[in-house]
Each structure stands twice: as structure tokens, then as C-alpha cells.
């Protein structure tokens, strides 16, 4: 059940991504419609984060290409925003909440320029949207997990992008934060933005997303939530690992074989 759409905002074509020569995602082909809240769902090690990292250009593709707004990534960077996993940075860094959110404006500022008044306003606005305005001057080392996640979200919001890719924004956050974040994401979708979220909780997936991508080392399904989250599809996604596939991957690494000829 892989549904392709007309005029997609994101187009992933025959994407294979490898770590150390071992493919972790095989031949992913998918398109996403504009103005949707998309959940990327699958078991541990299915390649969920890998997919959005590859789309963001953080991991090289062994094959295939990605087009966003029908253009290569480089041309549209300013319209895309990325929220990395919370644990990907060291929070014991000498910076305040506001400093971090202001980073969301750096892309627009370019080199040498200092943040202007308007950038600070934008950062403040983003902080208000995630309900962190009271923590503006707080040191980031003193934040709780949920607060860290909100700060990362505010930084992405300050970018004023059209597409957002979020890596596990609900991991290890409290219920209050989760509810606040999903409300915000819905609001963004209603404004016509596209939000792609890596998520690992099946229970809440039906309620949260209107489009779902099921992954397990390859694309199992991509389409509207009610058509994708079926018993059959879930069994295909979670029903055991494709052992031959991962054995072949191991072989490629051990033999130092390229995943594509020439």
C-alpha cells in the first residue's frame, strides 16, 4: 500500500542509505502531499531516523535522489527545518535558551551578520508558541527533557520554514509537553505546513497523523492513516526482521562491496 501523490512537496526516489557500506534502508520510493502531518513509524533499527537524515542531506545516499518542492535540497534549504534528536547534543553547553532558539535565524542571516532586532523578535515569538517564554534566560544545562525538546522545537519554528522534519520529538517528554507539541503541530498543518515526525508509539499514531509512512529497512507503506494503519500492514512492518536482507547487508560490509555497481 504505497500511495503516490500528484504535485508532492517531498519526493524520495529509489533511496538506499548505508552505514559503513551496510545498507540500512533499501530502495525507498515515496511522495508526500502538502499540508499533512506525517508519522514515520516502524520498529527499532527500521531506519526511521536514517530516512529523515538522508532527506536532510546529513547522510549520503548510496543511490537515488530526493526532491523537495520539485527542487534539489540545496535550492530550498531556507524552506526546510530540522529538529534533531534531543540526545544528539551536549546540553552542558554555555548557552541560554534564547541563544539556542536564536540559532534558528542563523540560516537567514548568513555569515558575519549579527542577529537583528527582528530576529530576536522571531525567536521570542517561537518561544511563546512552545510555552517557554518564562525560560528565556535559563541556562540550557538546567532544563528538563521536555523543556529541551520545546527549545529545539522553538528553534525550528524560528526558521519560519514550510516543511519540518522532526526526529523523535516525543521521546522522553512528559504528557503535558507531548500534548502541547501535538497541538502546535496540528496548528502548523492547518496553516498549510508539512510536518514529518519520527514516532515510535503505535497507540497514539492514529490520533496524531493524517499520513503514515511504515518502515522496516524498506518502505512497507505510505498513505493516509486510515488506509495504512491496518492489521495486515502492521504485521508486515513488525512481523519479524527480514533476516536475509540484513545478512546480505552484513556481507556487503564485510566484503567491502559497493551497494551499486560502478
Amino acid at each position: 500500500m504505497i500511495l503516490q501523490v500528484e504535485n508532492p512537496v517531498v519526493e524520495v526516489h529509489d533511496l538506499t542509505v548505508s552505514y559503513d557500506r551496510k545498507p540500512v534502508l533499501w530502495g525507498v520510493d515515496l511522495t508526500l502531499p502538502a499540508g499533512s502531518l506525517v508519522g514515520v513509524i516502524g520498529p527499532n533499527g527500521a531506519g526511521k531516523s536514517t530516512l529523515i537524515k538522508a532527506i536532510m542531506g546529513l547522510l549520503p545516499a548510496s543511490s537515488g535522489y530526493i526532491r523537495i518542492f520539485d527542487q534539489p535540497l540545496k535550492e530550498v534549504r531556507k524552506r526546510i527545518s530540522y529538529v534533531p534528536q534531543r540526545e544528539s547534543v551536549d546540553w552542558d553547553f554555555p548557552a541560554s535558551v534564547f541563544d539556542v532558539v536564536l540559532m534558528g535565524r542563523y540560516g537567514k542571516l548568513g555569515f558575519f551578520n549579527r542577529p537583528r532586532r527582528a530576529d530576536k523578535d522571531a525567536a521570542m515569538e517561537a518561544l511563546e508558541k512552545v510555552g517557554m517564554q518564562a525560560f528565556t534566560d535559563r541556562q540550557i544545562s538546567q532544563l528538563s527533557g521536555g523543556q529541551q525538546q520545546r527549545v529545539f522545537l522553538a528553534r525550528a519554528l524560528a526558521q519560519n520554514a514550510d516543511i519540518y522534519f522532526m526526529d523523535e520529538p516525543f521521546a522522553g517528554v512528559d504528557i503535558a509537553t507531548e500534548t502541547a507539541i501535538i497541538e502546535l503541530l496540528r496548528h502548523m498543518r492547518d496553516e498549510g505546513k508539512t510536518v514529518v515526525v519520527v514516532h515510535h508509539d503505535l497507540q497514539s499514531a492514529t490520533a496524531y497523523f493524517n499520513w503514515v509512512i511504515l518502515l522496516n529497512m524498506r518502505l512497507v507503506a505510505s498513505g493516509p492513516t486510515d488506509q495504512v494503519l491496518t492489521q495486515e500492514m502492521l504485521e508486515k512492518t513488525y512481523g519479524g526482521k527480514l533476516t536475509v536482507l540484513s545478512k546480505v547487508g552484513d556481507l556487503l560490509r564485510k566484503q567491502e562491496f559497493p551497494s551499486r555497481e560502478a
Partner: protein
Amino acid sequence: MSDFTEFFSFTDANVRFVAIGSVLLASSSAVVGCFTLLRKRALVGDAVAHAVLPGVCLAFMLSGTKNPLVLLLGAFITGWLSLIVIDFITSRSRIKEDTAIGLVLSVFFGIGILLLTSIQHSGNAAQSGLDKFLFGNAAALIGEDLIVFSVVALLLLVCTVVFYKELMLLCFDEAYARTIGYPVRALELLLTTLTVFAVVVGIQAVGVVLMAAMLITPAAAARFWTENLRLMLVLAALMGAFSGLAGAYVSYTAPSMPTGPWIVLIISMIAISSFAFAPGKGWVSRIWKQRRNKARVLEENLLKLMYQLGEPNQDYYSSRNVTDIMERRQIPKSEISKGLRKLKREGYVVKDKNAWVLTRQGQTRGMRVVRLHRLWELYLTQFLELASDHVHEDAETIEHIITPELEQKLMQELQYPVLDPHNNKIP
């Protein structure tokens, strides 16, 4: 002493130059070191520092002069080469970065020492002074050397100011920097180049062996005092400058003494006192906090016990003596007397001949501790479903740290209870 006034009056032009030079070199490497530290690449600086020695020697052998620009160039080339080799080893083999750094550092330094020894035995008169690169000699910072090195040091400072925002983002969140279109590889190259330059100019004053300390120690010390990156850079620069100046002074008063070890000792003293005395993070303030907590626990326990002594007859203001208190709870006698004296100073108890009496404030505070204790016991039995004989020990600690807001919240959640799990009244 006269040396001291002579040096710090800066009347002698040479002294002035040496002082300015050392301050510039030390502070520029300290500022660059802050970013290296935050990028968690502290060891790389050490490898570069050792790897510049063969470059200096080769430059001298090939050119036959001690022209600072030529030596600088040589140092820069081998410094860079060492980084490329480290990168190559880590990406093309199973050897991890720390091992690669260890390998590269010793190989380059070994070659450097080899070359230096052969130069010294070559009978070339111009070579005297080259060995100063090992441990540094700030007093040699004069004339052309001074100008070249100071200009480079100034450039380093300017670069970190100009690229402040980019370097900060690189150190904090490299992946994000890439997604907003920053040329991360170029920025990394910039930081590496700054590191190599900082090392190259610093070795004149500190020497290759100890140069890493000039990069990392001021940054580590400054990190203890602030949570603000700008302030951290300024503090590191000041600490570096101070140690540089001190090193220059030593070098001036004892010309045969190598400067590097002195500078490093001084900056290390600053770092150690930072670890010890920095507010909040330093261990003195931590020990202080623990002592204060302990004193507070003792005081509150005494007030609680005196309140409880009054509970059976609702008579809180009778005299109690130390034995009464000891009967209720085993606290060493000396501790009790010490605590009571402190409470007297604070106005919570008054002394009545050989016994002690609660004041009204003492009664209120004692009552609050008892209330918190019993509230917490109740909370544990109701919300965590612990057995009522398992909750006392826990409440003994928690009673001292609950804030008035939390107390309010507890009351609400427990719906303003009257009795604790042991059927004692909650006051």
C-alpha cells in the same frame, strides 16, 4: 623586588615588547582553546603542538635562517599534516581517534627531536636558540619575531570575534548547522586552522611540549565561572593573559629558566583554584552547601523533638533538658548542645537555667516539620501504596526539603488530612 618594579613599570622598551607579546600569544590561544574544548577536541591541540617541532627544524635546515616567517610556515605545514594523518587513520582503519592522536603525536615529536639533535650537532652557529622551541622562551620575543607573532595572534582574536556565531553553532550542534546550509566542513577547517595557528604562535612563549595546556587549561578554568560563552571567552583570555605576563616576568628575571613550565604552572594554579572556589560548581561551595544542609537538619530535628515532647499534654512551652531530647532520639550530646546554642542565637529557643524552652517562632517551625513529616508519610502510603511501617525513614529526610508551595500542593492532593498513617494528628 627591584626586578619586580623594574619589570612592571614597563619603562624598558624590551620589557614592554615581551610583556605585550606574551599577553597576546597566551590570550589568543586561550580563546581558540575555548572552542576546541567545547568541540571536545582538546587532545587534538596536543597532537598539533608536538607535531610542529619537525616543521620548525625542517624549515631551519632548508632555509638556514631563523626568520620567524619561515619557521612559522614550517610549523604550520607539519601541524596541519598531523591533523590530516589523524583523520586519515580514523576514517580508513579501525583505529579510534584517541589512539590515532597518540600515535601521530609521538611519531611527529620523535622525528622533531631527531632533527633538532642533528641540527645541534651540525656545528651551525645560527642554530643556537632553536631548542627554545621545546620549552619556550618569552624573553626572545623581540624585534621581528614579536611583530610577526603578535600580528598572527591578533588575527586569531579577530577571527573568533567575526566567526563567533558560526563557531558556536558548529560546537553546539553540527548536524543542525549543516541543515541550515552552513558549510560545516569549511568551518571545521577554519577552527582547525585557528588551532594550528594558536599553537604555532604560542610555542615561542610556551614551547611545543606544554603548548596544549595553554589551549585547554584557561578554557576549562573559565568554564567553571560562567554559563555564558562570551564571558567564558573573555575570562579565558584574561586568565591566559595573566599567566603569559607572569611567564614573561619569570623569563626576564631568570633568563636561563624556560618560560613554558612557569606559564603552565601559573595557569594550572588558576584552574585548580577555579575548580575549588567557583561558585556553585566548585567543591568548596559544594562542601559548604552540604555543611549548611547538615546544620539545618540538626536544627529542625531539635525543634521537631521539642515540639513532640509537648504534644501529649499540649504544653509546648515547658522547659526541656538535653536528656529529655536524648530519650526521644539518639543524637550525640555534643551535637544537641551545639544545635541548641545555634537555635538560641537565632531566637527559636531560650535558655532557662539548665533547660531550654521553645519560643513561639520555635514552636511554629517545629510544628511545620512535624506536619511535613506526617504529610509525607501519608502521601507515601496513599499514592505510592507503601506499608505504613516503611515510610518513616523516608519522611525523616523529605521533611527538611519540602517548600511551602509543595506543602500547599500536598495538602490539596491529600484533601487537607487530619491524621497520618500512624493515627497521629497532623498539626
